């Protein structure tokens, strides 16, 4: 039977198991929206296309399912770019469908035409321009396959309007074969054997786990591996939650704002076991002095990550979950493990020493201004850690990483690679839609939040009980901090004291606005916010403007050269 292209498109989505899409209508996608009018799909109407992409991203990070976006051509498409680049840097599975002007008009500078395939080529895992309705089902299937397999990432599919309006009798492919795309899931047994040997011979091992563990759903395997051998563990920002934040072997995050303990341990380790992490510059500090005494094992599904930044001794290309399973199998018997653990005693003592010397800390004067870290700690206490936390980018992100403990994967959603301000709030919406009954907290700065504040309308429309906690210091805090440290306190354009009254703003949108100006009010506000179940709450915490994030490794310095409180 012949069907219209837009219906075939929706059929494709349903065949992929899609139940939720984030979108915004427009001329080129009108045929899709006409079918959506009575399609069995949950369509979330956003207020800005960038919001749609971050929501799909938050949905994907929280649930593990690919996020799906539908937007129109031209500006609709270009508005998705920041969101796509964000997902690309953090390897988030996502498929973005953009409308395009009819094929006959492509290249003619038609109304709302943009070469979105050209624009997004460097920030997608792959992208497509659909040239005929016949190839649409195959392309949609390939798009989902590519987005969700191997190292995941965003895929964009550009669909001209005439393709959506054509009629055809098409077959949906059951299987697809991509000759040139075959990710390697199994680690090489020889390399795994070598890795085990290196680990068992080490006296000062450290596990450095990243977002790849979460993407691979391998946190159980990671925990088994680490606890069997008793190896001190750090994670990247993206890896928070991959290993329980409250576990005694957890040293906290490493890197520029990592803990003293984690950074010292990595600097002194003789065997660094990198799992699903990519040696980002915010992690390594001065690259020549990163882990100078270590043999490095690197498990990653993407061969390009291996020896890109840091020369690796034992690379293992494969899916983290599979490789960890093999590594666990390779651990010698109880006698070997006992001896290994005995050899580690001195190392553990040293790690504990570091742990106790410079704990993450801040000083809260009971009569003084609210410290942002205090707010995070109170949020942690109020939820007992049972929440999905999203962050914006900057100081709020670092404090959320440092002072909230994440025991489970997919509970800390942050833009790690691209560092996108405006990510956290829409990502919280996506997470809440994926998990309607979970507590979702968006930790925000007053700067970042305003980059996608319009999505308050979306959150109100869908009655999402998201808790937004603004650490309101009336400055662009992280940039201000750098100006304080490195630019002679010349606070150039970082003061944003002209801001809306966030409480009134929330109310204007139909959300709840609460404010805390004093320490006593913090817990009260949080308690009240937690009791609201039918709409978003915006908590405006007036915090100390001059609080800095510590420790800090200045750019270009090795990890052990930290500025401490």
């Amino acid at each position: 039977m012949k069907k219209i292209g837009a219906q075939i498109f929706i059929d494709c989505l349903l065949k992929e198991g899609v139940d939720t899409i984030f979108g915004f209508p427009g001329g080129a996608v009108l045929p899709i929206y006409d079918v959506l009018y009575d399609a069995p799909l949950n369509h979330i109407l956003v207020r800005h296309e960038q919001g749609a992409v971050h929501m799909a991203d938050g949905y994907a990070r929280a649930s593990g399912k690919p996020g799906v976006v539908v937007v129109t051509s031209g500006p609709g498409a270009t508005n998705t770019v920041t969101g796509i680049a964000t997902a690309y840097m953090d390897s988030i599975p996502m498929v973005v469908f953009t409308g395009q002007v009819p094929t006959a008009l492509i290249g003619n500078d038609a109304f709302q035409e943009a070469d979105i395939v050209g624009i997004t080529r460097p920030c997608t895992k792959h992208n497509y321009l659909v040239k005929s309705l016949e190839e649409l089902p195959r392309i949609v299937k390939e798009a989902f396959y590519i987005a969700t397999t191997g190292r995941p990432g965003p895929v964009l599919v550009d669909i001209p309007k005439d393709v959506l309006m054509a009629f055809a009798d098409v077959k949906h492919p059951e299987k697809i074969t991509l000759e040139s795309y075959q990710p390697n899931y199994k680690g090489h047994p020889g390399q795994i054997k070598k890795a085990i040997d290196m680990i068992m011979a080490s006296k000062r091992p450290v596990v450095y786990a990243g977002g790849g563990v979460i993407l691979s759903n391998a946190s159980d395997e990671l925990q088994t591996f680490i606890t069997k051998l008793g190896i001190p563990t750090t994670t990247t920002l993206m890896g928070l939650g991959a290993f329980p934040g409250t576990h005694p072997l957890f040293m906290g995050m490493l890197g520029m704002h990592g803990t003293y303990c984690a950074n010292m341990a990595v600097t002194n380790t003789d065997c660094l076991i990198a799992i699903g992490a990519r040696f980002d510059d915010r992690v390594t500090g001065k690259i020549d002095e990163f882990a100078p005494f270590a043999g490095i094992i690197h498990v990653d599904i993407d061969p390009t990550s291996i020896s890109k930044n840091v020369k690796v001794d034992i690379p293992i290309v494969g899916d983290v979950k599979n490789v960890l399973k093999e590594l666990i199998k390779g651990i010698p018997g109880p006698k070997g493990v006992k001896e290994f653990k005995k050899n580690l005693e001195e190392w553990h003592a040293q790690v504990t020493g570091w742990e106790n010397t410079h704990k993450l800390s801040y000083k809260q004067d009971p009569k003084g201004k609210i410290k942002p870290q205090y707010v995070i700690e109170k949020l942690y206490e109020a939820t007992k850690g049972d929440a999905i936390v999203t962050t914006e980018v900057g100081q709020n992100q670092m404090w959320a990483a440092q002072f909230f403990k994440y025991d489970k994967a997919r509970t800390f959603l942050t833009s790690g690679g691209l560092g996108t301000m405006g990510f956290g709030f829409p990502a919280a919406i996506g997470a809440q839609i994926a998990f309607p009954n979970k507590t979702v907290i968006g930790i925000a700065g007053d700067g970042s939040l305003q980059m996608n504040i319009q999505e308050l309308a979306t959150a109100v429309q869908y009655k999402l009980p998201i808790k937004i906690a603004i650490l309101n210091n009336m400055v662009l805090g992280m940039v201000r901090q750098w100006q304080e440290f490195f630019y002679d306190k010349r606070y150039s354009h970082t003061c944003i004291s002209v801001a809306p009254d966030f409480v009134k703003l929330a109310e204007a949108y139909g959300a709840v606005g609460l404010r805390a100006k004093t320490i006593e009010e913090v817990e009260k506000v949080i308690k009240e916010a937690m009791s609201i179940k039918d709409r978003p709450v915006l908590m405006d915490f007036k915090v100390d403007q001059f609080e800095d994030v510590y420790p800090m490794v200045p750019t270009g310095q090795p990890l052990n050269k930290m500025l401490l409180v």
Partner: protein
Amino acid sequence: MRHTISILVSNEFGVLSRISGLFSGRGFNIESLSVAETLDAKISRMTIVTRGDDKVIEQINKQLNKLINVIKVTDFTDEEHIERELALIKVTSNPESRAEILSIVDIFRAKVVDVSPRSYTVEITGDEEKINAMTELLRPFGIKEIVKTGRIAMARSPKQK
């Protein structure tokens, strides 16, 4: 070091731009590039000459392999292979110099493909060295224009079974 990399890609629109975008986006340099269909019309071959230390070449190789449209990447540098380029050289000629130019053309087994009262256009194929050598010999006569293809390369068949 200079590397000649041969890439089999699916013959689709936009693939060239993916490859060149990868090079420009990551700061790799393309010295020459040639693209054409293979025996299988669905597959094209690109031959790229690039430069970099081992680390850069390793990244280029891996990044190319990561592209969905790339089927196979071969670095010919450490392999027995044949390389060819083609150049068209327009050289000034006059009654006194013609004989000498023709003898150079003959020595290099090149050929004259266009003649005008004041110039010869010479076609030469060969590896870079040969083309450079002939260019240098023709230079004193006055080269008006030179157009070169990118390099193409093919692995030599094994000599013994």
